[in-house]
């Protein structure tokens, strides 16, 4: 992750049980978060989960109905005390989904606008604008109309405009969603490098889990206006606290069964599940993801990331524990690997990624290993 900038640990932004309703529906429901100096914090969730509303509450573009928002020891919105600081007095930077590059201004004028509002002398404005434009490789475009740039350039311009006055916090509202796939990846890396170099604090909103995982120091998964889980990308990916977080972050293979009697050999916290359907007779073991112990006989599901399943050709050897046998139904070559649908005899199948080190065939029988340390068991 690179060297952490100085001052890490100091809290820049705190949300304390913040709620916002639109007519009857709660868009944001009692959300509490705290964001530390120098980190990239991401709000991740499907559309309509309240992440953009949360961001707009922080920006001051919406007023909270309940709760309190604190920005660097200054309360900027408090429903209880009827206190509200206008967006222009919060010293935040924001990059909008549409970039919101002002079409009636040139590149220079767009970036200079916030500095002029802060009453900087002309020379200082020119110098600061030139420096920030150079930083993102837009030097030389100063006199072009802001909207006569390519998508990636407009994005950089919007970023410059948000950064040029060194805001306390940079807000990014799905800034990559209007870019094509290649450019998106490139901008992601650029933003991350820039953030590390300048040590700015970023609150980032996205529905794209790849963006969220790759860009964040910490992230919060939101669902129906609530925060489901907060943690580092790796912690959330590997130890999701809820089925929603598990399924939203990355791919998951889920199979159902019921809790078997505690079997010998399973360690502490381990649960063995007897599979049902066409897999009746097979058992898999994994870590209990729920807080409570699972009673024998209760319906349960096992979950595992597809890349954690060990796939081998079926050599018709003896049946082993923690293995299932299946057949490749459909196989497609997607460049760096194969994508295979493996079924267990019934209608349902699971989708796996297979290495291209071996030639696979449709109809081939495979042996799937489910390492107990990577399998989780959830109450159904």
């Amino acid at each position: 992750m690179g060297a952490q900038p100085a001052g890490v640990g100091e809290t820049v932004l705190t949300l304390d049980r913040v709620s916002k309703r639109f007519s009857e529906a709660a868009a944001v429901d009692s959300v509490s978060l705290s964001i530390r100096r120098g980190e990239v914090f991401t709000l991740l969730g499907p559309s309509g989960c309240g992440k953009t509303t949360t961001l707009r509450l922080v920006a001051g573009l919406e007023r909270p109905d309940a709760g309190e928002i604190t920005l660097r020891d200054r309360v900027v919105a408090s429903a209880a005390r009827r206190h509200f600081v206008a967006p222009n007095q919060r010293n935040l930077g924001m990059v909008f989904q549409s970039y919101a590059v002002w079409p009636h201004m040139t590149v220079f004028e767009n970036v200079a606008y916030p500095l002029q509002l802060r009453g900087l002398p002309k020379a200082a404005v020119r110098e600061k604008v030139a420096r920030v434009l150079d930083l993102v490789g837009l030097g030389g475009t100063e006199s072009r109309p802001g909207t006569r740039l390519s998508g990636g350039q407009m994005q950089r311009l919007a970023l410059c405009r948000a950064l040029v006055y060194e805001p306390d916090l940079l807000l990014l509202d799905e800034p990559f969603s209007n870019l094509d796939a290649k450019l998106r990846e490139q901008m992601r890396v650029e933003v991350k490098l820039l953030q590390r170099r300048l040590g700015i604090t970023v609150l980032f909103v996205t529905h794209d889990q790849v963006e969220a995982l790759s860009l964040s120091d910490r992230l919060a998964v939101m669902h129906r206006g609530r925060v489901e889980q907060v943690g580092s990308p790796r912690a959330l990916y590997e130890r999701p606290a809820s089925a929603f977080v598990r399924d939203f972050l990355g791919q998951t293979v889920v199979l159902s069964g019921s809790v078997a009697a505690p079997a010998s050999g399973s360690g502490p916290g381990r649960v063995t599940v007897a599979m049902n359907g066409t897999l009746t007779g097979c058992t898999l073991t994994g870590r209990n993801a729920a807080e409570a112990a699972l009673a024998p006989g209760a319906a349960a599901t096992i979950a595992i990331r597809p890349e954690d399943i060990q796939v081998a050709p079926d050599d018709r050897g003896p049946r082993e524990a923690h293995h299932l046998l299946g057949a490749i139904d459909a196989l497609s070559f997607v460049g760096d690997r194969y994508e295979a649908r493996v079924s267990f005899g019934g209608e349902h199948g699971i989708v796996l990624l297979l290495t291209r080190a071996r030639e696979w065939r449709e109809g081939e029988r495979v042996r799937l290993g489910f390492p107990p340390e990577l399998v989780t068991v959830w109450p159904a």
Partner: protein
Amino acid sequence: MAGLSDALAAPRPRRLELPGVLCTLVLAAVALCVVFPLLLVALQSLQVAPPGQPARYGLDGWRAALGEPGLRAALVNTLTVTFARQLISLPLAVLIAWLLARTDLPGRSWIEFGFWAAFFLPPFTVTLAWILLLDPEYGLVNTSIAALPFVGAGPFNIYSFWGIVWVHVVTGSLTVKVILLTPAFRNMNAAFEEASRVAGAGTLRTALRITVPVMAPAILSVLLLGTMVSLQTFEVEQVLGLPFRFFVFSTTIYDLLVTRVPRYDAATALAVLILAAMLPLVFAQQWLTRGGRYTTVTGQFQSRVHALGRARVPVTIGVLALVVVVLGVPVAFALLGTFMKLFGFFHVPDPWTLANWRTVLGDELFLRSLHNTLVLSIGTAVAAILVHSLIAYIVVRTSYAGRRLLDFVSWLPFTVPGIILGLALLWLFLGVAFLRPLYGTTTLLIIAGVIAGMPLGVQIIRSGLMQLGAELEEASRIAGATWWTTYRRIILRLMAPTLLAVGMITFVGAARNIGNFALLTTTANRPLSILQLDYVAQRKFEEAVVVACIIMFVSLAGALFARLLGLRSGLG
């Protein structure tokens, strides 16, 4: 429509904060200038004492109004004229808007300008021009046809129901619809049409099955607007209807007001009736423009044009002929009329003269009126841009509790005939102590002009604002700008074309306004539009048509100016 909106995932309208005090101030000012006068009108309808005597309240006015023998006829006439106007002009306007916006019609941008310019022509001037052509005895068309062998008399009579309908169609009805609908058609997402073409439909079927239904909200909105305007027209009926005792609502009211003892009670009772009839139309209009019904047609798409193919030549000729009828004929004949010794009489020996121009231009009254008109029109345009944009902004962008009310109130000036609004303003300015000094000043006329232009001005700015992404404003707020700075440096700049268009429309509206000003002017603040009316009243038609021509040229200059600034505006 809901399905389409959902498919395009229209974002929830965003509400920004504008200090509630300012909003309330605007609402209060608008209420004082619009609602209060209308309440005075309603109150006046119950005040039955003749002018100059102590007030006495009763239902005599209503009885007189409802018992007025001509009322039934006026009601029928108003409705039938309105219906005939809309029936002819709407399909024609939709067709022309579609041709201008969605096909490769040659010279379409100049043709569109032709309709723009025609929209700016004062109805009074146009009416005079058509009299020259269609007068049953002396009209040039009639005398030409009568000169043909085997034809007895000319077939046309402008002093008739169809004469009135004709003049209406070629003045306001058609052109206003074309200039409002064309931008809306232009902004429609071409993908809707392309999907239909790919699915196997031809150009015509696509237009009828896809384009027109998708545009239905805009078309309906224009129809409602047109109907409201029709219900309160005045000049055309006053000039053409009087000779054959054909009255509509507004001329009946005028008749009640200009008799020796004005019947304010009966006139205002009739006005209240019209107001009541208009309210459902206002509610329908508001329902249409609310809640993203327009979001199906946003400007972010490339709109591609259809090839007309073999129909190109005949269609072009047809549309050009229409431009000649709505623009060329009135301009040419109004101008011709100014050079006639006796207006409308082509067959007198040596009918041409320059004396009319000399008389008018040498008249000191004229110069003062010209000055008044210019001050009035420019003042109205500037004030209208500020007031209308503020109202539109509050309605579209803020979460102010009274924004719906403000939106509704901004429609009210359309709900009563101009002459009644003028009368109501007269009572307001004579009745309220701190406004009394304004009587007889041009400021008073500017206020009247801003109010008269309010419904159209607010609506045009409003639809422009709805297309302007809220994020452009929000970005400015986040960058540290106050609301006022954002309004000045972002909103006004981005809305400049729309605002200038509204400015031009109100400029021209004020230059030619008769109904609202007729009762508010004194010799000190009399503008050209009232001067021409005074000339008519003195039977000086030749002078009147000279003044009408000058108003027309001021209007056309306005249209050209707007065009040079590259303005395009409308609903959608």
